[in-house]
C-alpha cells in the first residue's frame, strides 16, 4: 500500500493526513456556528429586520396619535417611556426567533446532524447559541432605536447599563429560544410559547406602562418575572428612570447563567436531538 501523501509531497513538507487539532476551544467551529445563526436570522433583512421595525413604528405612531387626540402636548414623556420598552422588546423577540426557528427548521429538515457530528463541544454549541441570536437581536434593536428617534429624543443616560441589559436580555431570550427549539416538535409549540408566554410576560411587565400604576398585588407578582428586570434596566440605561439597578443586574445575570447551564446540559446529553 502506497503511503499517503506521496513521497514527493512529503519532501515538499506536507506531513501525513490527520485530524485537525484544536486547542481548548474550537474557534473555527464556534465561529462557523455563530455565523450560521446570524446569517439565518438576518439574511432576508427585508422581512426579518424591516418587519419588527415597521411594527414598532406602528406602535409608536398609534400611541402618538392616541395621546395627541387625548391630552394635548403632555404625551411626549409617555412616548419617551414607551420607546425604550419597544426597542428591548423587539430585540428580545428577534433573539428568541433566531435561535428557536433555526433549531426547529434544522430538526425538520434533518440537517441538525451536521451540527451534532461536527467536532464542536456542547459548551461551544451553547456559546454559539448565545452569541448568534444576541447579535441578531441587537441588530434589530439598533434599527428600531434609530427609527424611534423620530418620535422621542432618546439620549443614553447610563450607557453601561444600557449595553449590559441589551446584551443580557437578548442572550436570555436567545437561550429560551434554544430550549424551545430543542424541545418543540412542531411550529405550533414555538408559536404557543411566543403568544402565551413571552408576549404576555413582556407586555404586562412594563413595555407600555409604569407598573407603579398597578395594584400592589400585581406589582408583587411582576417582580417574579425576569423579563421585567430586563425591560426596567434597559429603560433605566436610556432614560434614567428610577429602578433598583443592583437587584436588576443580579437577577438578569443569574437567570442568564441558569439558562446557559440548562442549554449546556441539554446539548451535552443530546436531549431530543440525538436518538
Amino acid at each position: 500500500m502506497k503511503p499517503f501523501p506521496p513521497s514527493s509531497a512529503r519532501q515538499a513538507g506536507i506531513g501525513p493526513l490527520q485530524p485537525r487539532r484544536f486547542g481548548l476551544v474550537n474557534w473555527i467551529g464556534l465561529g462557523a456556528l455563530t455565523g450560521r445563526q446570524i446569517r439565518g436570522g438576518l439574511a432576508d433583512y427585508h422581512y426579518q429586520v424591516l418587519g419588527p421595525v415597521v411594527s414598532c413604528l406602528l406602535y409608536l405612531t398609534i400611541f402618538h396619535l392616541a395621546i395627541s387626540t387625548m391630552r394635548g402636548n403632555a404625551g411626549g414623556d409617555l412616548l419617551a417611556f414607551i420607546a425604550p420598552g419597544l426597542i428591548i422588546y423587539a430585540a428580545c423577540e428577534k433573539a428568541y426567533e433566531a435561535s428557536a426557528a433555526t433549531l426547529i427548521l434544522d430538526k425538520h429538515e434533518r440537517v441538525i446532524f451536521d451540527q451534532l457530528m461536527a467536532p464542536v463541544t456542547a459548551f461551544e454549541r451553547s456559546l454559539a447559541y448565545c452569541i448568534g441570536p444576541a447579535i441578531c437581536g441587537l441588530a434589530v434593536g439598533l434599527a428600531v432605536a434609530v427609527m424611534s428617534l423620530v418620535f422621542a429624543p432618546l439620549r443614553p443616560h447610563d450607557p453601561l447599563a444600557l449595553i449590559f441589559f441589551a446584551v443580557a436580555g437578548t442572550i436570555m431570550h436567545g437561550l429560551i429560544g434554544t430550549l424551545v427549539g430543542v424541545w418543540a416538535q412542531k411550529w405550533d409549540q414555538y408559536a404557543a410559547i411566543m403568544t402565551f408566554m413571552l408576549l404576555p410576560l413582556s407586555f404586562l411587565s412594563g413595555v407600555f406602562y409604569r407598573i407603579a400604576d398597578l395594584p400592589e398585588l400585581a406589582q408583587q407578582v411582576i417582580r417574579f418575572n425576569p423579563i421585567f428586570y430586563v425591560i426596567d434596566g434597559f429603560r433605566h440605561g436610556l432614560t434614567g428612570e428610577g429602578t433598583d439597578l443592583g437587584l436588576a443586574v443580579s437577577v438578569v445575570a443569574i437567570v442568564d447563567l441558569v439558562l446557559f447551564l440548562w442549554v449546556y446540559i441539554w446539548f451535552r446529553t443530546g436531549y431530543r436531538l440525538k436518538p
Partner: protein
Amino acid sequence: MLIPKSSSVACQGLSGGWGSHAPAGLASQSHRQYFLAMQNSTQPGGLSSAPFSNPTLPRLAPRAYGGFNWIGFGTLYAKEVRRFIAVGTQTILAPMVTTLLFLAVFVLALGHSVDQVGGQPYILFLVPGLIMMAMTQNAFANTSSSLMIAKVQGNIVDLLMPPLSPLEQTIGVAAGGLTRGLAVGLATGLAMWIFVPITIAHPLFALFHGVMASLLLALIGMLAGIWAEKFDHMAAVTNFVITPLSFLSGTFYSTERLSPAWKAVAHVNPFFYMIDGFRYGFIGHADGSLAAGIAILCVSNLVLLVLVHRCFARGYKLKA
C-alpha cells in the same frame, strides 16, 4: 369491446384536466361542461354507454349537478373550517389572548389620562375596534395561508381538479375565512365581556359590518394567497399592508380630533369604515359617514369577489 372504450373514457376524464392529451374539443371545456357533455350524450356507443352490460346494475355515469354544486361547495367549506378548528389554540385562542393583552396594555397606558372618547369611556370605545381588528386579521390569515400552503405543498390540485366551478371555489374558501373571522370575533367579544360591561346598541348593524369586513379580508387574503409565491411574500403583505392599515384605522383613537393630515389618511383607509361602522353598532357613535361606509364595504366586496372569481376562472398563478 365495451371495456376498452370505457377505460379510454376514463383516460380522457383524467387527462382532460391538463388539456394536453385530451381531444381538442374537450381540452377547452371546463370539467363541469365535460361531465355534463358525458351525461347528456345519448348516442349509442357514445360517452355515456354503460361499461357493463348487466341490466341489474345501475347505469354508471358521472354525478349530475344542478346550477350549483352544493356537495362540492359544502365539502370545500367544511375542509376550510376543519383546517382552522384542528389548530384552535393557534387560530382562535391565540388571537383572543393577544387582543385581551392589547386591551389591558392600552387601558393601563392611556386609560388614566383619558376621560371620554366619543361620549364613552375609553375602554368601551376601544373594545369594538379591537374585536374588529382580530376578526379582519384572522379572516385574512385563514384564506391566505390556506391557498399559500396548498400551493407550496402542491395539493392545490385537490381544489382545482374536482368539479367545482370558479364561483364555488371562490365562495367556498372565502366562507371559510369569514367563519374564522366571526369565530374569533365571538370568542374575543365573550372574553372581553368578562372584564368589560359591553353593550350592543344596534346588533344587526354590528353583525352586518362584522360579516362584510371579514368577507372583505377573506377575499383580500385569497388574492394575496394566489399572488404570493413564497411565505416571505405573504409575510411582507401582512407586515407592510394589512397590519399598518388595521392599526392606523382609528381603533385606538377617535379620528375626530386628529390633525387634518392624519384625518385625511384615516378616512381613505377602508379599514376605518369597517371599524367605525362596527363601533357604531356597539356604542351608537360614529366618527365618519355610515352610508359611505356601507357603500364602500358593499362595492369593494363585490369588486373583490369578481376579481378572485376571474383569478380562479383563468387559473392565474394556479394552473400551469
